[in-house]
Protein backbone atom coordinates (compact mmCIF):
# COMPACT_ATOMS: atom_id res chain seq x y z
CA UNK A 1 0.00 0.00 0.00
CA UNK A 2 1.40 3.43 -0.91
CA UNK A 3 1.99 6.14 1.67
CA UNK A 4 -0.96 8.23 0.35
CA UNK A 5 -3.28 5.20 0.41
CA UNK A 6 -2.37 4.41 4.01
CA UNK A 7 -3.04 8.01 4.99
CA UNK A 8 -6.32 8.12 3.03
CA UNK A 9 -7.51 4.92 4.74
CA UNK A 10 -6.70 6.37 8.17
CA UNK A 11 -8.40 9.68 7.41
CA UNK A 12 -11.50 7.95 6.00
CA UNK A 13 -11.84 5.85 9.15
CA UNK A 14 -11.41 8.99 11.23
CA UNK A 15 -14.05 10.84 9.16
CA UNK A 16 -16.55 7.98 9.56
CA UNK A 17 -16.08 7.80 13.34
CA UNK A 18 -16.46 11.56 13.82
CA UNK A 19 -20.17 10.94 13.10
CA UNK A 20 -22.09 13.44 15.26
CA UNK A 21 -19.88 16.45 14.50
CA UNK A 22 -20.91 18.84 11.72
CA UNK A 23 -19.55 18.25 8.21
CA UNK A 24 -17.37 21.39 8.45
CA UNK A 25 -15.91 20.29 11.81
CA UNK A 26 -15.20 16.77 10.50
CA UNK A 27 -13.43 18.05 7.39
CA UNK A 28 -11.38 20.55 9.42
CA UNK A 29 -10.21 17.76 11.77
CA UNK A 30 -9.39 15.40 8.88
CA UNK A 31 -7.45 18.17 7.11
CA UNK A 32 -5.47 19.00 10.24
CA UNK A 33 -4.59 15.38 11.02
CA UNK A 34 -3.57 14.86 7.37
CA UNK A 35 -1.24 17.88 7.59
CA UNK A 36 0.17 16.56 10.88
CA UNK A 37 1.01 13.16 9.38
CA UNK A 38 2.75 14.72 6.36
CA UNK A 39 4.71 17.15 8.57
CA UNK A 40 5.67 14.50 11.12
CA UNK A 41 6.80 12.05 8.42
CA UNK A 42 8.90 14.73 6.72
CA UNK A 43 10.39 16.02 9.97
CA UNK A 44 11.43 12.66 11.38
CA UNK A 45 11.92 10.78 8.13
CA UNK A 46 9.70 8.04 9.56
CA UNK A 47 7.39 6.06 7.27
CA UNK A 48 3.70 7.10 7.30
CA UNK A 49 2.88 3.79 8.99
CA UNK A 50 5.04 4.76 12.01
CA UNK A 51 3.55 8.24 12.24
CA UNK A 52 0.03 6.77 12.14
CA UNK A 53 0.97 4.31 14.89
CA UNK A 54 2.19 7.25 17.02
CA UNK A 55 -1.17 8.99 16.50
CA UNK A 56 -3.03 5.96 17.83
CA UNK A 57 -5.97 4.29 16.09
CA UNK A 58 -8.33 6.48 14.07
CA UNK A 59 -11.26 5.13 16.12
CA UNK A 60 -9.64 6.15 19.42
CA UNK A 61 -8.68 9.59 18.08
CA UNK A 62 -12.25 10.12 16.83
CA UNK A 63 -13.59 8.99 20.21
CA UNK A 64 -11.55 11.70 21.98
CA UNK A 65 -12.93 14.35 19.61
CA UNK A 66 -16.50 12.97 20.04
CA UNK A 67 -16.25 12.94 23.84
CA UNK A 68 -15.00 16.52 23.89
CA UNK A 69 -17.79 17.53 21.51
CA UNK A 70 -20.54 15.69 23.40
CA UNK A 71 -19.51 17.07 26.78
CA UNK A 72 -18.97 20.57 25.38
CA UNK A 73 -22.46 20.52 23.75
CA UNK A 74 -24.05 19.13 26.90
CA UNK A 75 -22.39 21.68 29.20
CA UNK A 76 -24.32 24.37 27.26
CA UNK A 77 -27.59 22.39 27.03
CA UNK A 78 -30.65 22.32 29.29
CA UNK A 79 -32.10 19.11 27.82
CA UNK A 80 -32.21 16.31 30.43
CA UNK A 81 -31.71 13.72 27.67
CA UNK A 82 -28.55 15.39 26.32
CA UNK A 83 -27.23 15.93 29.85
CA UNK A 84 -27.95 12.35 30.92
CA UNK A 85 -26.27 11.01 27.76
CA UNK A 86 -23.16 13.05 28.49
CA UNK A 87 -23.06 11.98 32.16
CA UNK A 88 -23.46 8.35 31.07
CA UNK A 89 -20.40 8.79 28.81
CA UNK A 90 -18.58 10.46 31.68
CA UNK A 91 -19.50 7.55 33.98
CA UNK A 92 -17.41 5.20 31.81
CA UNK A 93 -14.31 7.33 32.53
CA UNK A 94 -14.03 6.94 36.28
CA UNK A 95 -15.40 7.41 39.76
CA UNK A 96 -16.11 11.16 39.34
CA UNK A 97 -18.23 10.42 36.28
CA UNK A 98 -20.12 7.65 38.04
CA UNK A 99 -20.93 9.91 40.99
CA UNK A 100 -22.14 12.63 38.59
CA UNK A 101 -24.27 10.12 36.68
CA UNK A 102 -25.98 8.71 39.79
CA UNK A 103 -26.50 12.23 41.19
CA UNK A 104 -28.06 13.21 37.86
CA UNK A 105 -30.42 10.22 37.82
CA UNK A 106 -31.34 10.81 41.47
CA UNK A 107 -31.90 14.57 40.97
CA UNK A 108 -34.04 14.15 37.86
CA UNK A 109 -36.06 11.32 39.45
CA UNK A 110 -36.67 13.38 42.61
CA UNK A 111 -37.52 16.64 40.82
CA UNK A 112 -39.55 15.02 38.06
CA UNK A 113 -41.34 12.72 40.52
CA UNK A 114 -42.29 15.58 42.80
CA UNK A 115 -43.62 17.69 39.91
CA UNK A 116 -45.60 14.66 38.72
CA UNK A 117 -47.25 14.20 42.11
CA UNK A 118 -48.43 17.84 41.85
CA UNK A 119 -50.33 16.87 38.71
CA UNK A 120 -51.76 13.77 40.41
CA UNK A 121 -53.07 15.71 43.44
CA UNK A 122 -56.22 17.11 41.73
CA UNK A 123 -57.05 13.60 40.40
CA UNK A 124 -56.34 11.67 43.62
CA UNK A 125 -56.64 14.32 46.36
CA UNK A 126 -57.08 11.79 49.17
CA UNK A 127 -53.99 9.77 48.20
CA UNK A 128 -51.57 12.63 47.54
CA UNK A 129 -50.02 14.97 50.10
CA UNK A 130 -47.88 15.31 53.20
CA UNK A 131 -49.04 13.47 56.33
CA UNK A 132 -48.12 14.48 59.84
CA UNK A 133 -48.50 12.36 62.96
CA UNK A 134 -47.99 13.74 66.49
CA UNK A 135 -46.26 16.83 65.07
CA UNK A 136 -43.79 14.77 63.02
CA UNK A 137 -43.64 14.03 59.30
CA UNK A 138 -45.20 10.59 58.78
CA UNK A 139 -45.26 10.22 55.00
CA UNK A 140 -45.48 12.10 51.70
CA UNK A 141 -46.16 11.51 48.01
CA UNK A 142 -48.87 9.42 46.37
CA UNK A 143 -49.86 6.55 48.67
CA UNK A 144 -52.22 3.58 48.31
CA UNK A 145 -53.88 3.42 50.77
CA UNK A 146 -53.22 6.85 52.33
CA UNK A 147 -52.09 6.85 55.99
CA UNK A 148 -55.07 6.74 58.39
CA UNK A 149 -55.63 8.55 61.71
CA UNK A 150 -53.93 9.72 63.82
CA UNK A 151 -51.87 10.84 60.78
CA UNK A 152 -53.49 13.66 58.82
CA UNK A 153 -52.72 15.44 55.56
CA UNK A 154 -51.63 19.04 56.17
CA UNK A 155 -51.16 20.81 52.85
CA UNK A 156 -54.40 19.98 51.00
CA UNK A 157 -54.45 21.87 47.67
CA UNK A 158 -51.36 23.91 48.65
CA UNK A 159 -49.53 20.68 47.84
CA UNK A 160 -49.87 21.44 44.10
CA UNK A 161 -47.94 24.76 43.91
CA UNK A 162 -45.49 23.64 46.60
CA UNK A 163 -44.62 20.35 44.87
CA UNK A 164 -44.35 22.14 41.52
CA UNK A 165 -41.98 24.76 42.92
CA UNK A 166 -39.81 22.34 44.91
CA UNK A 167 -39.80 19.82 42.00
CA UNK A 168 -38.82 22.52 39.48
CA UNK A 169 -36.09 23.87 41.76
CA UNK A 170 -34.71 20.34 42.18
CA UNK A 171 -34.66 19.89 38.38
CA UNK A 172 -32.93 23.26 37.90
CA UNK A 173 -30.38 22.52 40.63
CA UNK A 174 -29.68 19.08 39.08
CA UNK A 175 -29.18 20.70 35.65
CA UNK A 176 -26.81 23.33 37.11
CA UNK A 177 -24.79 20.70 38.98
CA UNK A 178 -24.47 18.46 35.88
CA UNK A 179 -23.40 21.37 33.66
CA UNK A 180 -20.80 22.47 36.23
CA UNK A 181 -19.52 18.88 36.57
CA UNK A 182 -19.27 18.54 32.77
CA UNK A 183 -17.31 21.79 32.49
CA UNK A 184 -14.97 20.56 35.25
CA UNK A 185 -14.54 17.21 33.53
CA UNK A 186 -13.55 18.94 30.28
CA UNK A 187 -10.38 20.09 32.00
CA UNK A 188 -9.53 16.60 33.23
CA UNK A 189 -10.43 14.42 30.31
CA UNK A 190 -7.22 14.89 28.33
CA UNK A 191 -5.23 11.69 27.99
CA UNK A 192 -1.49 11.27 27.85
Amino acid at each position, binding site marked *: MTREMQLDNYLNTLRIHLGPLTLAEREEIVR*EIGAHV*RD*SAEETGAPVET*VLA*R*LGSAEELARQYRDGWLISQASRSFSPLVLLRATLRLATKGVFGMVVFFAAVFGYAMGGGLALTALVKPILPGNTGVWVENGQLASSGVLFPPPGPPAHEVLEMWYVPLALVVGSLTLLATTAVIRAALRTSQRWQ*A*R*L
Partner: protein
Amino acid sequence: MAKLRALPAEGEQPDRWEAQLRKGALEMAALASLWQGRLYGLEIIRFLESNSRLVLGEGTIYPILNRLKAEGLLSSEWVEAEAGHPRKYYQLTVAGRERLHLMAEAWTSFAGGLSRLLEPVMNKQEELK
Protein backbone atom coordinates in the same frame (compact mmCIF):
# COMPACT_ATOMS: atom_id res chain seq x y z
CA MET B 1 -1.97 -9.33 30.43
CA ALA B 2 -1.40 -11.76 33.26
CA LYS B 3 2.07 -10.33 33.64
CA LEU B 4 0.67 -6.81 34.00
CA ARG B 5 -1.82 -7.88 36.64
CA ALA B 6 0.96 -9.64 38.53
CA LEU B 7 2.82 -6.34 39.00
CA PRO B 8 2.69 -5.16 42.61
CA ALA B 9 -0.01 -2.52 42.98
CA GLU B 10 2.18 -0.23 45.07
CA GLY B 11 4.81 -0.28 42.31
CA GLU B 12 2.28 1.06 39.80
CA GLN B 13 0.80 3.79 41.92
CA PRO B 14 3.44 6.55 41.56
CA ASP B 15 3.36 6.19 37.74
CA ARG B 16 -0.42 6.34 37.65
CA TRP B 17 -0.42 9.31 39.98
CA GLU B 18 2.14 11.12 37.87
CA ALA B 19 0.05 10.42 34.76
CA GLN B 20 -3.00 11.96 36.48
CA LEU B 21 -0.95 15.00 37.45
CA ARG B 22 0.26 15.47 33.89
CA LYS B 23 -3.27 15.01 32.55
CA GLY B 24 -4.53 17.89 34.67
CA ALA B 25 -1.68 20.15 33.57
CA LEU B 26 -2.02 19.46 29.86
CA GLU B 27 -4.65 22.07 29.05
CA MET B 28 -2.60 24.74 30.82
CA ALA B 29 0.57 23.54 29.07
CA ALA B 30 -1.11 23.73 25.64
CA LEU B 31 -2.24 27.29 26.35
CA ALA B 32 1.20 28.23 27.74
CA SER B 33 2.97 26.97 24.61
CA LEU B 34 1.10 29.67 22.66
CA TRP B 35 1.97 32.55 25.01
CA GLN B 36 4.83 33.78 22.77
CA GLY B 37 2.90 33.50 19.51
CA ARG B 38 1.08 31.25 17.10
CA LEU B 39 2.12 27.61 16.54
CA TYR B 40 0.68 24.64 14.66
CA GLY B 41 -0.07 21.25 16.26
CA LEU B 42 3.27 19.53 15.65
CA GLU B 43 5.16 22.64 16.82
CA ILE B 44 3.12 22.63 20.05
CA ILE B 45 4.02 18.96 20.63
CA ARG B 46 7.73 19.64 20.02
CA PHE B 47 7.61 22.81 22.16
CA LEU B 48 6.13 20.91 25.10
CA GLU B 49 8.66 18.09 24.69
CA SER B 50 11.64 20.44 24.70
CA ASN B 51 10.43 22.92 27.35
CA SER B 52 8.76 20.61 29.85
CA ARG B 53 8.63 16.94 30.73
CA LEU B 54 5.37 16.54 28.84
CA VAL B 55 5.93 13.87 26.23
CA LEU B 56 2.61 13.49 24.44
CA GLY B 57 1.06 10.82 22.30
CA GLU B 58 0.86 12.67 18.98
CA GLY B 59 -2.92 12.26 18.82
CA THR B 60 -3.46 13.68 22.30
CA ILE B 61 -3.02 17.37 21.65
CA TYR B 62 -5.43 17.79 18.72
CA PRO B 63 -8.73 17.00 20.51
CA ILE B 64 -7.59 19.33 23.33
CA LEU B 65 -6.81 22.18 20.91
CA ASN B 66 -10.20 21.58 19.28
CA ARG B 67 -11.94 21.86 22.64
CA LEU B 68 -9.98 24.95 23.72
CA LYS B 69 -10.98 26.55 20.44
CA ALA B 70 -14.64 25.61 20.99
CA GLU B 71 -14.39 27.27 24.42
CA GLY B 72 -13.16 30.48 22.76
CA LEU B 73 -9.72 30.33 24.39
CA LEU B 74 -7.91 29.78 21.07
CA SER B 75 -8.43 30.95 17.52
CA SER B 76 -7.00 29.25 14.46
CA GLU B 77 -6.18 29.98 10.84
CA TRP B 78 -4.89 27.95 7.93
CA VAL B 79 -1.60 29.22 6.55
CA GLU B 80 0.03 28.09 3.32
CA ALA B 81 3.47 26.64 4.07
CA GLU B 82 6.58 25.82 2.08
CA ALA B 83 5.90 22.17 2.88
CA GLY B 84 3.32 22.19 0.07
CA HIS B 85 0.26 21.90 2.28
CA PRO B 86 -1.40 24.41 4.57
CA ARG B 87 -0.98 24.19 8.35
CA LYS B 88 -3.50 25.09 11.00
CA TYR B 89 -1.97 27.67 13.34
CA TYR B 90 -3.40 28.35 16.78
CA GLN B 91 -3.14 31.47 18.88
CA LEU B 92 -4.48 32.63 22.22
CA THR B 93 -7.58 34.82 22.21
CA VAL B 94 -7.97 37.60 24.78
CA ALA B 95 -10.12 35.19 26.86
CA GLY B 96 -7.38 32.53 26.48
CA ARG B 97 -4.67 34.91 27.74
CA GLU B 98 -6.84 35.87 30.72
CA ARG B 99 -7.62 32.21 31.53
CA LEU B 100 -3.94 31.25 31.25
CA HIS B 101 -2.98 34.13 33.53
CA LEU B 102 -5.46 32.92 36.17
CA MET B 103 -4.28 29.32 35.76
CA ALA B 104 -0.63 30.36 36.11
CA GLU B 105 -1.36 32.28 39.31
CA ALA B 106 -3.34 29.39 40.81
CA TRP B 107 -0.72 26.84 39.76
CA THR B 108 2.24 28.86 41.08
CA SER B 109 0.58 29.44 44.43
CA PHE B 110 -0.47 25.75 44.70
CA ALA B 111 2.94 24.41 43.63
CA GLY B 112 4.76 26.85 45.97
CA GLY B 113 2.69 25.66 48.93
CA LEU B 114 3.29 22.01 48.11
CA SER B 115 7.02 22.58 47.60
CA ARG B 116 7.29 24.08 51.09
CA LEU B 117 5.39 21.10 52.44
CA LEU B 118 7.73 18.67 50.67
CA GLU B 119 10.94 20.52 51.59
CA PRO B 120 11.66 18.34 54.68
CA VAL B 121 11.10 15.19 52.59
CA MET B 122 13.54 16.36 49.92
CA ASN B 123 16.10 17.47 52.56
CA LYS B 124 15.86 14.04 54.20
CA GLN B 125 16.56 12.42 50.82
CA GLU B 126 19.64 14.63 50.37
CA GLU B 127 20.91 13.55 53.82
CA LEU B 128 20.39 9.86 52.94
CA LYS B 129 22.50 10.31 49.79
